[in-house]
C-alpha cells in the first residue's frame, strides 16, 4: 500500500528545491567590491593539501580587507568545493563567474585544462601559480593563462640541476638512473617532456613509473624501484599519494635522501605522518618555503587575533599556507596594477585584471613592502612571458621541519624557451588560433 503522506512531503521538498533553483537570485556584481571566487577542495583524497592552501588564500584576502582593501576597494569572496574533480570545478566556475569574478585559481591541473577553454570566452584570467600547462607560459598563444612563479618544466629542470650539483656537475649525470614516480594524470605527466629532453642531453636514463590516482596503492611501484635501483627518484604526487610514497620508500628501504619531490610533494601534510621516516627527503620550494615573514605576522595580528582566521593559527607559516598567501597576493597585485592604468579605487573587470597580470613588475622592494621578504624573488611578467620568474630552491625535511638545502637555482632558459614555444605553437595549430600581434600585446 503506497503511503501517500511521506511521499507527498518528499515530493514537496524536491519541488520547492527545484523551484528555488529556478528562481535563484540573479547574480549581480557588487558594484563596490572586487569579487574573488575561491575554488577549494576541503573534501576528498587531496583535502589534506587543499585545506591549508585554501586557508592561506582566504586569510590573505581578509588581510587586504583589514588593511583597507585594494586602494579602498573591498574584496568579497566565495568558496566553492571542487573535490579536485574536473566536472565539479567546471560547475563551480559557471556558478561563480556571473558574480563578476576577478580571477580563477583552480589549484588543479585537470580543472585548469578544462577552464583554459572557457576563460578566453568569458574573459576571466586564470592564475595557475606553479601548476597548469607548462606551455601556457607563452603569453603569445595563451592570452588568459598565467602560470606565475613557475611551471612544471621549470620544476623538473631545477631538480635536475640540483641533482647535478650534488653529483658535482651536470656532466656527472651521464649513465645515472633517474626514476619518476608520478600521479597518472595530466598533472603527473607534465614534467615528462622536459625530463626526456634533459635525459637525451645529459645522458641519464629516465624511468617512468605511473601511479594510479589517487595514489594509495603504490606497493608494486616501489617494488619496481627496489628492483631497478635508480640513483634518484623524483616524486610527482599530490594529496595522500605523497605520504604513501614516503611510507612505501621507508618500507622498501629506498634512501629518502635520494628522493626529490616537486613543490606539490613537499609540504607538511606529506611528511608529518611519516615523521622521522621521511628525514632527508628533499623537495622543491617554489620561491617560498616554510617559515614566517612579515606577512605572516600581519596575518596573525590583523586576522587571527580578531578571530577571523580561516584555519588554525599553527598553520600560518606552513608551506602550503604560504603558497595560498602568495597566490592570493599575485591576484591582488594584478588588480592593483590594473587599477594603476584603469582607475585607482575602481572595481576592475576580468579584462583589465588580465592586463594587470600581464604587466606585473614586483621587484624585491615591492615584495618586501608587502611582507614577502625572504619568501619570494622578483616577478615580472610580459606579453611573451606569463610566468614571470623561473627560480626555485630545494628544501629538506629534517624530521621536524623543512630547511633550505640549496641556493636559488634558475631553470635553464636555453632549453625551456624553445620547448615552450614549440608546445604553444602546437596548441595554437590544434585550436586554429593565431599568435598575438605586437599591437595586441601593447593594448
Amino acid at each position, binding site marked *: 500500500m*503506497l*503511503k501517500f503522506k*511521506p*511521499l507527498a512531503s*518528499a515530493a514537496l521538498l*524536491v519541488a520547492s*528545491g*527545484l523551484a*528555488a*533553483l*529556478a528562481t*535563484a*537570485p*540573479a*547574480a549581480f556584481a557588487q558594484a563596490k567590491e572586487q569579487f574573488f571566487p575561491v575554488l*577549494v577542495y*576541503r*573534501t576528498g583524497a587531496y*583535502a589534506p593539501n587543499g*585545506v591549508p592552501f585554501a586557508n592561506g588564500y582566504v586569510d590573505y584576502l581578509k588581510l587586504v580587507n583589514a588593511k583597507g582593501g585594494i586602494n579602498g576597494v573591498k574584496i568579497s569572496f566565495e*568558496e*566553492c*568545493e571542487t*573535490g579536485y574533480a*574536473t*566536472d565539479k570545478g*567546471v*560547475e563551480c566556475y*559557471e*556558478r561563480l563567474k*556571473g558574480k563578476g569574478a576577478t580571477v580563477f585559481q583552480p589549484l588543479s*591541473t*585537470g580543472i585548469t*585544462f*578544462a577552464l*583554459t*577553454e*572557457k576563460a578566453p*570566452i568569458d574573459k576571466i584570467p586564470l592564475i595557475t601559480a606553479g601548476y597548469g*600547462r607548462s606551455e601556457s607560459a607563452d603569453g603569445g598563444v595563451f592570452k588568459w593563462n598565467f602560470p606565475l612563479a613557475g611551471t612544471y618544466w621549470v620544476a623538473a629542470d631545477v631538480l635536475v640541476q640540483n641533482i647535478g650539483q650534488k653529483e658535482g656537475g651536470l656532466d656527472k649525470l651521464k649513465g645515472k638512473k633517474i626514476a619518476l614516480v608520478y600521479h*597518472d*594524470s*595530466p598533472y603527473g*605527466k*607534465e614534467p*615528462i*617532456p622536459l625530463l626526456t629532453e634533459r635525459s637525451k642531453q645529459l645522458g641519464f636514463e629516465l624511468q617512468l613509473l*605511473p601511479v*594510479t*590516482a589517487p595514489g594509495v596503492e603504490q606497493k608494486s611501484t616501489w617494488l619496481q624501484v627496489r628492483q631497478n635501483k635508480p640513483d634518484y627518484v623524483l616524486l610527482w604526487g599530490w594529496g595522500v599519494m605523497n605520504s604513501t610514497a614516503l611510507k612505501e620508500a621507508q618500507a622498501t628501504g629506498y634512501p629518502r635522501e635520494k628522493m626529490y619531490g616537486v613543490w606539490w610533494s613537499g609540504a607538511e601534510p606529506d611528511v608529518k605522518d611519516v615523521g622521522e621516516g621521511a628525514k632527508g627527503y628533499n623537495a622543491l620550494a617554489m620561491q617560498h618555503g616554510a617559515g614566517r615573514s612579515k606577512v605572516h605576522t600581519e596575518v596573525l595580528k590583523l586576522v587571527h587575533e580578531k578571530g577571523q582566521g580561516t584555519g588554525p593559527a599553527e598553520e600560518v607559516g606552513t608551506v602550503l599556507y604560504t603558497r595560498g598567501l602568495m597566490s592570493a597576493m599575485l591576484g591582488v597585485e594584478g588588480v592593483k596594477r590594473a587599477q594603476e592604468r584603469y582607475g585607482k579605487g575602481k572595481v576592475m573587470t576580468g579584462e583589465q585584471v588580465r592586463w594587470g597580470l600581464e604587466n606585473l613588475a614586483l621587484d624585491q622592494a615591492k615584495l618586501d613592502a608587502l611582507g614577502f621578504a625572504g619568501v619570494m624573488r622578483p616577478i615580472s611578467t610580459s606579453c611573451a612571458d606569463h610566468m614571470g620568474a623561473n627560480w626555485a630552491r630545494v628544501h629538506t625535511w629534517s624530521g621536524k621541519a623543512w630547511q633550505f638545502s640549496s641556493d636559488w637555482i634558475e631553470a635553464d632558459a636555453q632549453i625551456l624557451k624553445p620547448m615552450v614555444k614549440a*608546445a604553444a605553437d602546437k596548441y595554437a595549430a*590544434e*585550436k*586554429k588560433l593565431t599568435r598575438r600581434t605586437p599591437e595586441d600585446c601593447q593594448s
Partner: protein
Amino acid sequence: MLYRENGQFKTSYRADQQIFPIRQDRVVIVAFLALAFVVIPGLASEYMLRAILVPFLILSLAAIGLNILVGYCGQISLGTGAFMAIGAYAAYNFNVRIEGMPLLLSLVMGGVCSTAVGVLFGIPSLRIKGLYLAVATLAAQFFTDWAFLRIKWFTNDSSSGSVNVSGLQILGWHIDTPADKYLFCLGLVCVCALMAKNLVRGHIGREWMAMRDMDVAAAVIGIRPVYAKLSAFAVSSFFVGIAGALWGFVHLGSWEPAAFSIDRSFQLLFMVIIGGLGSIMGSFFGAAFIIVLPIVLDNLPYWFGIPVDTALASHLTNMVFGALIVFFLVVEPHGLARLWSTAKEKLRLWPFPH
C-alpha cells in the same frame, strides 16, 4: 476528471499503437517540448543551461542506454563509464584525424566504436549472469581506464594525456553559446529517446524483456539468447557512446580519462535504479535526481542565508543525498518512474476515491 480517455476512440491500428495514445498525454508532451525548445533557452540563466541542463540531458541519454541493458535486458553492467570514454575518445579521434569531419558523423562513429567494444565485452554475458557479469563489465571499466592512459595514440600523442575539442559547428551553425549547446543536446536526446522507445516497444524490446524475465523460457520459445543479449549490449553501448562523446565535446570541452572513471559508472547505475528499471521516462527522472539534487542541496544553505563551511556543505550534501536514495527505495523500490505511473493511475480516478 481531467485524465480520462472518454470519447477518444482509435480508428486505426497506427493510432492505437502510438506512444502517447491518450490525448491529454500528447498535449502535455507537446507543451513540454515547446517549453524545452523555445522557452528555456530564452529564459534560463547561463549557469542553469551550462551546469545543470546540459549535464542532465547528456547523462539521461547515457541512462537510457544503461536502462536498455540493465532494465530491459536484465544484464547488469558496471562498465558504462568505459563505454562513455570509448565514445568520447573515438569521436575525438575521428574529429581530429580526419580533416573536415562533420560533427554529427564523428558523434555517430563514436557510438559505433563503443558498440563494437560493447559487443566484445558483452560476450561473457552469454555464459555468466548477475553479479558475475557485473564483475566482467567492471573489467571493461578498468581496461579502458588503462588503455586511455597508456596508449598514446588514443589521445593524439598528447603529452599530458588531456584532450580537447572546440569549434563545434553543424552546417554553419556554430555551437558556441550555452543556449546553442543546450539545444543541440536536447535535439539529439529527443531523437535518441524516440529511437530507444520504439526499439523497446518493438519485437527486439520484447525479446530483451523475455531474456530478463526468464532466459531459459525465452530460449525455449525461440528467442536466440546470443542475438538478444548482444543486441542489448550493442544498442546500449551506442547510446552510451554518443552520450560520452557529447559529455566530452559539449559539456567539458577538455577532458582526461578520469572524467569517465568508475564513479561515473556507479552514478549512472544509481540513476537507472532510482529512476526506474525498464523505463525510458525513468532514465530522465533518475538523471534529474542524481544531477540536480546535489546542486540544490549544495546551494540550499546560501539561499536560506545560513553561512556554511564548504566542506561541511559538501559532506551534508552526501548525507542527505544518501538518505533520500534510501528513502525513495524504501517507499518505491521500482523507482521514480513507478511513482509517476502510479500518480497517473490515481489521476484517472481523481477526484473520486475509486
